[in-house]
Every structure is written in C-alpha cells, then in structure tokens.
C-alpha cells in the first residue's frame, strides 16, 4: 500500500480525519491489514455513517412487525405461525461497471440476506433506472441488467414477479439496480446473526475465496472517477447454481438444528460478517485464516478479509454438531470448514501461518464515525414554483400528446423485460407482473414432510416496488411520501392491505450539503406516509455517491442522479379469491372515478412532452384523505362490488383509462367517457398525475340493489364516487376531445421497449 497517497484527501475511502482517528485509537498508524478492515467497516456502505441519524427517525415497530431493521432482513407476522422476511438492496456501482454480473450478484446477494434468516425466498422484484431511452448506452445496460437478473433468479427457482423500469437522463452515468426479495419462514424458525455462544465453532461455508470485488465496499462509497479504471479488475462473478445448493444446504442444516447463528458474506465479505456477528452477539472470535478455502493462490490476509466472492456464509455451530453440519454441506458438494471459535473477549484474533497474526478490538472497528453532515436547501428549488397553467396554451391536438404519453418508455409495457424472468415458478403467482401489484398465494408445501406448510390456504400477499425520482427532485418531501403512497395504492387497488415496507435510498454524495438536505427531506416524507398508512419500515438500504465526474471539452462537472427513494411494500389479503386486477373486464361495465381530481400538472409527463418543461411544483398530498380513500376502496372490493381498479399515476387519468382498456390479456377493450370538468382545463383532467383517485369499474352492481350498501361505505369514509363512462370495444373517447383506436394504442404500448 502506497502511503504517499495519504495527503491526497482520501485513502482507501477514508477521510484524513478518519485515518487520524484510527491512528489515535490504535495508538499508532494502522498497518495494511488494519487499514483494510477499518476502511471497509467505516465505509458509508457498511457503517451508514451519514444516514444513520435520519434512518433512526423512521417508524419501525407496530402492526405486524416481528423484527425490524438491524438484522439481515425484516420480519412480518403472516398469521398461522408463518412469517414473511423481506428486504431491498442496491447494486448500482457494480452494475454500472459490469451490468450482467453486477445485477446478477445483486440478486444473489439479496436472496442470501433472506435465506440466512431461515426463510425460503419465494419472490423477487427489482427497480431499475437507466439513462435516457435514446442514450446510446441505454440499450446495452437494459439488456445486460435484465439478462443478469433473469440469469440469477431463474436459476435459483425464485419467481421474479414485479418491478419498475425508468429511463431518465439523470442516470446516464449512474444506473440504479435495486433488488428486492421476500421469503417465507415459520415464526419459530427464524435465524439471526446475533446469537452465537462462547465455544461455538465458527464455520465458513460455500464458494472458495478469490480476488473478486476486493475493495468493493470502499468502491461503493466513492464517487466514480474516470481515472480510477484500475478498480475495474475486481468484478464479482455470480454462480447461481452454487447459491441454489447453498440455499438448500442452509435450510436443511437449519431444519436439523445445526446452526446457532448465521450471517451471509456480503459487502466486505469475511470482515463484515465476522465483526458484525461477533458484535451483535456481544462476543469475540478466533478466525483462522489458514482454513479459508482459496481460489486464487497466494492471497494475503487482507485480501482474504476483503474479498467479495459470492455465495459464501459464516455460521456459528455447536462444537459437537460440526461434523453433522459438514455432512449436510458435503451432500450438496459445498465447502464447509472449521475456521475458528467464538470467544468471550470482545476481540477478533486472526491466526495466519499457524501463528497469531493480529488482534483487533471489536468495538473500535464496529463503532465507526457517525455524522450529522451539513445540510442546505438546494438553490435550484427556488425556481420550482406551482405551475401557472394559463401561461401555456392548450395544444391543438391532444390526441397526439395522449399517444405520446402512453407510448412513452416510462409508461409503456415492460413486457419484454419481465418475460425474461420466470414469474410462474413456485405455483404461487396469482397475479403476474404487468398489473399494479403482484399477488401470491402460499403454495405452502416447501418441504417434503409438509413441515412448512401453512395451515391456511386462502390467504395471500401482495408485492410492489415504486419510486418517483422526478418528483423527489422537484419536492423531496413529497417524493418520499409519494413512493410510499403509490406502493400502498397499487396494493389497495387489488384489494390488499398494506402491511410493511422496505426502502432503498439512492442519492449522490452525502458530502454535498444540498444532497444531504434532499436526503433528510425524503426520509421525512417516507416517515410521515409510513406512519399514516401504518406500514412500518422493517429493512432498507442506502446507496450514496451515485455521481460521476465527467469531462466535456476542458470543462469538468459532476453528473448526479436525482434523489431516488425506492419503496418495496408488502400487503396482505385474507381471502385471495377476492383479488381484483386493474384491467377492464367486459364491454358495458360502468366506469367510475373514486376520489378527487385536483388537476395540478406540475412536474407531469404532460408538461414535459407538451411544453418541454416539467420543473414545477407537484401537487401536495393529503395523507388523512389518502387513508380514507384507500380504506374505502378496499371495503368496496371486499364486498365484491368492483371488477377493476387502477390508481392514477404517471400519465394521469387518460393513461389509467387507456391501460385499463388494453392490458386485459384476453381482449382489447376501450371506453367512452363523458365527464363534466367543471370549468377546469381538459388537459388538467386528462393528464394531471398521482391524483388521490382511482378508476374503477363495476357491472350493474353499483347502480342496482347493492348501491345502497356502497353508498353507506362511501359516506362512512367521506369519499366521492362518480360515474364517468362505460367500457366499450376498440375505441377510446373522452368528452369528444380524445378520440383514439384501442388497437393502435395497444400496439404502441407493447412495442416501445
């Protein structure tokens, strides 16, 4: 290691004062080994040093939460002795460097987080952001990332049931890949990393350790720099086949009660897994570096400690049971070696070449710095004003704009993406990708002796991921809130009840006070929505430094992403037979608007496409009203009154109607809508986004005998329901202004991406 790098500002991702703090704690300068360990553990990625103070404000308890943040993933009570375990994680930087392997190992990593908890992964989702659709690198990134995700998830046999794909030029130099996994376990069969006991054998299982991803953890915490190309030789290669074996072996060992505590080797591999397991269990460890299975000859101790080779786990097991544990891993053809011991003294003693090599104090390593970094409201926000719509003349041909909107890459169907994922494996997918939320049943029989079979076959769960970075940029608080609210709307629109959420917060550098301000606001927004909707935050992930230094001519600048909070939400439904889907069912069904339309076009896709300017303030959200609206909709669905429900998201009411008409898998439908817009501009009705409203359909039910029950429900929640039109075949008509052919729209919608 070249010490002369020190004065240059950063050393292995550590700031100068952090380096000095380490020297002070050790009473001398750190050597290479120590520096490697500290730089990994004190990295933003492992220590959450800039985000912790904010994350601590989020609601994490209550409702059905069994285990909140802090473990590998959060756990929610699913009734009947069942538990659901889920989390979302980013793999942005590795995916930008090598999109196939980066996204594949991202999926592999999040699945390990889930099965270390004792849960069998039952569904994956992902949230993807690429540069502008017309950017020359975008097709490459899109195709490779999707291939990588499919490669890993499909091989593991875990269905990928949903996600989102967004294109925006703010991601031209920093793509985002956020992966979500949910697993199912028995409530009394959850495994933690915080439970190892003195005298336990420390066991290394899984793939051998190679040079993959060395300094990956510190890399993830550094701005990309065009000159730092040499970091590119550290690509981690995913091996889903080995992970499938690791999954089966771990679950088998757990079932046989051979594991006391377990932690996967994710970022900073052996370093973070050993220090975190020891720290959370309030114990120490002996780690025998001679025992670590190596793939590359001659790796140094620090390289072994920092390697991010995939498909590995650290386990603590009772000494007498080690041979039994090894027999399980042998059956699956995996390494399983005795690599140390749990000790009382809170240190990690490393042995190398049969001698004590280093002893590090756990508290010192684990309790890294924590910052309350400076914040400053960004200057650009001064220009973000409510839209003065009367300054904009209504375009002559709204039909053209309507077509442009539904065939915009951010709105158009992502079918070519999700058909590359196996979404039917597991015989549990009741509503596949392509509709608001994915709905899964409990196909139960995951183990041969029916041990894991749920007692209740009629219950189901719903999953959804969402984020809206454009809104988070225009108004970070609203953006944070909206991500949560939209997830909940998608779940409610199917008839489900939102239960808990996980978040993935993707931002540029926290050292920039404006970014830190955005972060604080976004977290506040998530917090208030999560409290109101009673969806506690049970796990999550922060990804900072999504920015890249660029050179254009002799000007240099930093390309930063918009603040991008992504939420993954879980919802429940007691009787899966009551689920509805967002698409129209039958010609002749009646179309209603449930809720209120404010008609604020600020920040909308319409403003962008029609006038080339979306930089206005988006509409506020009334959370109290939102809760009533969603409860009302859920009651109507539960009573069986509705045939379809769709939320009004990007692209506005027109898009909600159009999608409802053309996404029916069996036929092409249309609509005729005639609605009194009460003096408002027609474009405000058609295209204003994220309204607190749903487009719903019903047969004759609502006007017939059941009408009075429906009316009671509406009154109870104080929500308005207005009939606006009728489901038709083949045509889309609104107030004699919009007049389009469904077939043509459908073709465009399904062929853009």
């Amino acid at each position: 290691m070249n010490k002369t790098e020190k004065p240059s500002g950063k050393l292995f991702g550590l700031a100068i004062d952090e380096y000095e703090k380490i020297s002070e704690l050790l009473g001398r300068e750190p050597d290479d080994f120590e520096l490697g360990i500290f730089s990994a553990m004190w990295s933003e990625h492992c220590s959450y040093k800039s985000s912790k103070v904010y994350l601590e404000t989020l609601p994490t308890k209550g409702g059905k939460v069994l285990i909140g943040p802090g473990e590998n993933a959060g756990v929610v009570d699913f009734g009947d002795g069942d538990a659901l375990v889920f989390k979302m994680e980013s793999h942005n930087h590795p995916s930008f460097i090598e999109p196939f392997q980066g996204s594949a190992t991202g999926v592999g990593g999040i699945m390990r987080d889930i099965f270390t908890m004792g849960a069998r992964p039952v569904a994956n989702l992902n949230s993807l952001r690429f540069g502008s659709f017309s950017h020359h690198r975008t097709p490459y990134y899109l195709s490779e990332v999707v291939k990588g995700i499919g490669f890993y998830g499909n091989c593991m046999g875990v269905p990928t049931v949903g996600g989102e794909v967004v294109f925006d030029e703010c991601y031209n130099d920093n793509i985002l890949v956020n992966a979500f996994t949910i697993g199912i376990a028995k409530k009394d069969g959850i495994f933690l990393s915080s439970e190892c006991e003195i005298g336990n054998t420390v066991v290394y299982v899984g793939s051998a350790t190679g040079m993959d991803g060395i300094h990956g953890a510190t890399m993830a915490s550094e701005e990309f720099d065009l000159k730092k190309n040499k970091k590119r030789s550290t690509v981690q290669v995913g091996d889903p086949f080995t992970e499938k074996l690791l999954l089966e072996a771990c679950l088998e060992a757990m079932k046989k009660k051979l594991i006391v505590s377990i932690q996967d080797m994710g970022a900073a591999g052996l370093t973070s897994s050993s220090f975190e397991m020891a720290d959370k269990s309030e114990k120490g460890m002996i780690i025998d570096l001679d025992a670590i299975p190596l793939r590359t000859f001659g790796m140094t101790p620090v390289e072994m400690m920092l390697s991010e080779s995939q498909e590995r786990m650290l386990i603590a097991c009772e000494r007498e049971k080690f041979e039994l544990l090894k027999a399980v891993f042998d059956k699956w053809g995996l390494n399983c070696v005795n690599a140390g011991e749990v000790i009382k003294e809170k240190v990690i003693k490393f042995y190398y070449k049969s001698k004590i090599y280093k002893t590090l104090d756990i508290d010192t390593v684990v309790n890294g710095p924590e910052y309350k970094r400076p914040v400053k409201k960004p200057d650009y926000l001064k220009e973000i004003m409510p839209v003065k719509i009367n300054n904009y003349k209504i375009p002559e041909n709204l039909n053209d704009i309507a077509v442009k909107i539904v065939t915009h890459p951010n709105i158009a169907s992502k079918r070519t993406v999700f058909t590359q994922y196996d979404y039917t494996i597991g015989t549990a997918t009741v509503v596949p990708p392509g509709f608001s939320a994915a709905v899964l049943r409990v196909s139960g029989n995951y183990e041969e002796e029916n041990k894991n079979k749920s007692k209740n076959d009629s219950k189901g769960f719903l999953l959804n991921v969402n984020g809206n970075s454009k809104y988070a940029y225009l108004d970070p608080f609203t953006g944070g809130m909206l991500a949560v609210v939209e997830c909940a709307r998608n779940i409610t629109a199917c008839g489900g009840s939102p239960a808990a959420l996980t978040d993935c917060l993707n931002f540029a550098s926290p050292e920039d006070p404006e970014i830190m301000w955005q972060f604080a606001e976004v977290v506040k927004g998530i917090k208030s929505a999560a409290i109101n909707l009673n969806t506690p935050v049970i796990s999550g992930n922060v990804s900072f430094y999504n920015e890249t230094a660029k050179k254009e001519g002799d000007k240099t600048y930093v390309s930063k992403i918009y603040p991008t909070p992504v939420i993954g939400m879980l919802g429940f439904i007691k009787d899966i037979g009551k689920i509805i889907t967002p698409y129209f069912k039958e010609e002749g069904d009646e179309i209603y608007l449930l809720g209120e339309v404010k008609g604020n076009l600020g920040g909308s896709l319409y403003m962008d496409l029609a006038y080339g300017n979306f930089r206005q303030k988006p509409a506020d959200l009334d959370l109290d009203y939102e809760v009533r609206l969603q409860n009302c909709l859920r009651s109507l669905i539960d009573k069986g009154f509705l045939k379809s429900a769709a939320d009004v998201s990007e692209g506005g009411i027109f898009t909600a109607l159009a999608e409802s008409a053309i996404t029916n898998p069996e036929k092409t439908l249309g609509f005729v809508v005639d609605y009194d817009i009460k003096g408002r501009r027609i474009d405000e009705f058609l295209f204003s986004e994220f309204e607190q409203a749903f487009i719903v359909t019903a047969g004759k039910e609502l006007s017939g005998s059941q009408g009075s029950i429906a009316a009671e429900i509406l009154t109870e929640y104080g929500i308005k329901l207005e009939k606006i039109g009728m489901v038709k075949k083949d045509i889309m008509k609104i107030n004699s202004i919009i007049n389009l052919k469904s077939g043509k729209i459908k073709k465009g919608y399904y062929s853009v991406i």
Partner: protein
Amino acid sequence: MNNKNIKAGIIVFPGSNCDFDVYRVLNEVFDASASFIWHKDKIKDLKKYDFVVIPGGFSYGDYLRSGALAARSPVMELVKDYALDGGIVLGICNGFQILLETGLLEGVMLTNNSLKFECKDVYLKTLNFDTPFTCAIKRDSVLKMPIAHHDGNYFATGGIINDLNKKVGVIFKYCDKEGNITDKSNPNGSMHNIAGISNKTNNVMGLMPHPERSSEKILGSEDGGYIFRSIIKYIKEK
C-alpha cells in the same frame, strides 16, 4: 379422488427447482403419492414407482449445455433401464432437455431464437391422444400452459423428424388460441412448432411447457392437469 396408491418418483438433481412444484401438485391436487429421488440415492432400480418425473429447473446450472451434465449422472442409467422396461417417464422443461441429452428422446434443444429466456403462456395442440400422457385430454381441445426456458428451440435431423411423425412421436405442437399451428405462435423457433415428443413406444415423453404450473384454476389454467390426469388414468386402467 383418491390416488394414494399411485406412486410417483421425482428425480432431483443439484439445481433442479421445479421439484417441489411437481411434488405439491401430484400430492395435493391429484392426491397421488409422490416422493423425491435424490440423484445420488443408493437405489438399485426404480421398479417401485408407477411413473417417474424429471422436473424442470437448472440442473448443474444449465452450464455447458442444458441437461448435458445431469444426463451423465448415474441415476439416469436407472431411468434408462426403467424406460426400456416400459416404465412411464415424463420430462418437463429441463427434464425434457435431460431426456434428450440422455438419448431416451431424440433431437436436441438449441437456444431460443430470440436468444432470450421466455416466460409466457402458450397454447398447445395435442397430436397423439393414444399415450399415457394424453389419454385423458379432450379431443379438439387447445391447452394453455406457461413456458419458462432459455433453450427450448427443438432441433432434429430430417430422419429423426420423419421417424417421429411416423410413430406419432410428436405429441404437442405450439399453436394459437384457436389451435392453428402458425409461425407466430411458435415461442422459441422450435422445428415444426414442436413442444413435446415421445419415444417410439410412447412411454417416455418430454415437453417444454409446465403442466404443474397450470393444474389449478387460481393459476389461470387447469389444462396442464390433463397430463397428470392421463397418466393416472392410464395406470389405473392398466
């Protein structure tokens, strides 16, 4: 429906991942007695089973060529003996690929012509109702089942295809909703739209679509169930 006396063996390779699904559907939906056979289990033969299923998945990660590595596993020798003895063997998706690589079925799977993994519903036309796998399928019916594979582009030489046609070994072809066998309804470039074939004696069949994922109404189709129904009917009537 009590089929508990019907014993099915489900062969599990490292990387198999539709094993649980087949197991669950056979036991719960069809009330049969299915159990797993781990590829390294020390057993002499498969005689105690009424039929054997090689489920889908990614045996050995689909590395090298799908099905190639599993086909070299000793348990496949037992499957060969079982099949030559007239035993009923069903290979689904990766199981089909393994049967091809083992030589129990003829031909080979190439990468889908889209070069992509394809997960979607397809429609199937049955060409031979006179097999243990199809005897309960309604004539003229078009079956809806999902596919989920990367290498399902069936290829064989002219001689093999002739042979298949002669012995009515082509069991399923991809078609459209109305039953027309068209290029557009071919999801992967498969020769003559072939989705499933059998051996000459019709006791070994492989197909790419997943009947176990389409045996329950709640999953959008019960059509795949007709394959399991057929097998059970055939065994009961034997």
